[in-house]
């Protein structure tokens, strides 16, 4: 499943004029929309990490966290819940990014 998502992204890159960042944004938005339609949950049930690790899973997690907290807290939850599941990804990326940037220098 994860492979299929990546292959789809690659075909998109090769056949359109999208740059990689554009393609990543398209996937994260697509993940959020599929999540809203209830489709992405089924993909996760079916494929586990294969659906969560691609960047579309990131969009899905934001929509899911936001909806979950909205049902619990109301409007405020929309905003507090957005990074419920993905805050971890952002935080670890910043943390490890800093540690490794301090330790390593890019090879020319």
């Amino acid at each position, binding site marked *: *499943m*994860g*492979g*299929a998502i*990546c*292959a789809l*992204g*690659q*075909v998109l*890159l*090769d*056949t359109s004029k999208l740059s*990689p*960042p554009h*393609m*990543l*944004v398209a*996937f994260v*938005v697509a993940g*959020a929309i599929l*999540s*809203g339609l209830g489709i992405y949950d089924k993909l996760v049930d079916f*494929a*586990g990490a*294969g659906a*969560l*690790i*691609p*960047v579309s*899973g*990131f*969009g899905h*997690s*934001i*929509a899911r966290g*936001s*909806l979950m907290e*909205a*049902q619990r807290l109301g409007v405020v939850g*929309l*905003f507090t*819940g*957005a*990074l419920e*599941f*993905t805050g*971890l*990804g952002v935080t*670890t*990326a*910043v943390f*490890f*990014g800093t540690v*490794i*940037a301090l*330790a*390593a*220098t*890019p*090879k020319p």
Partner: protein
Amino acid sequence: MVSPGAKKQKADERAKYQRLATSIVPKPPLVRNAIVAFVVGGLICMVGQGVMNVFTSRGMSQDEAVAPTLATMILIGAVLTGLSAYHPIGEFAGAGAAIPITGFANTVVAAAMDFKREGYILGMGAKMFIIAGPVLVYGILSGVLVALIRWLYRG
């Protein structure tokens, strides 16, 4: 003042050049690229599933295991980037390396490493999310909008 005739001729030449250029630029090997992206992306997700299985076998539920799995994958991507090993994978596999969360980690760590020389605040601090930023911005925007619509719709 340039005469309109000369301007038109220039535009014509430019269009001709564009056509020539697009006819010469090699077409990307679509099938080969898609297969490589499929295999590498699939392998990365398989590693992720393996990590997740380790966590669930220690008594975590599927939901609880997601967070530590993603954190582990980010750590793997970050370390590979620090060793300058992720770039060749990306060159080889394209979207197969960019779409998984390890690629997200790679863009953040690579930017942090590259811009360190511009200073820690305005370089590393400001530009760490130079590639990952749009993903966050539009991910959050679309995620919140989708959640809002569903929440209003279902109550």
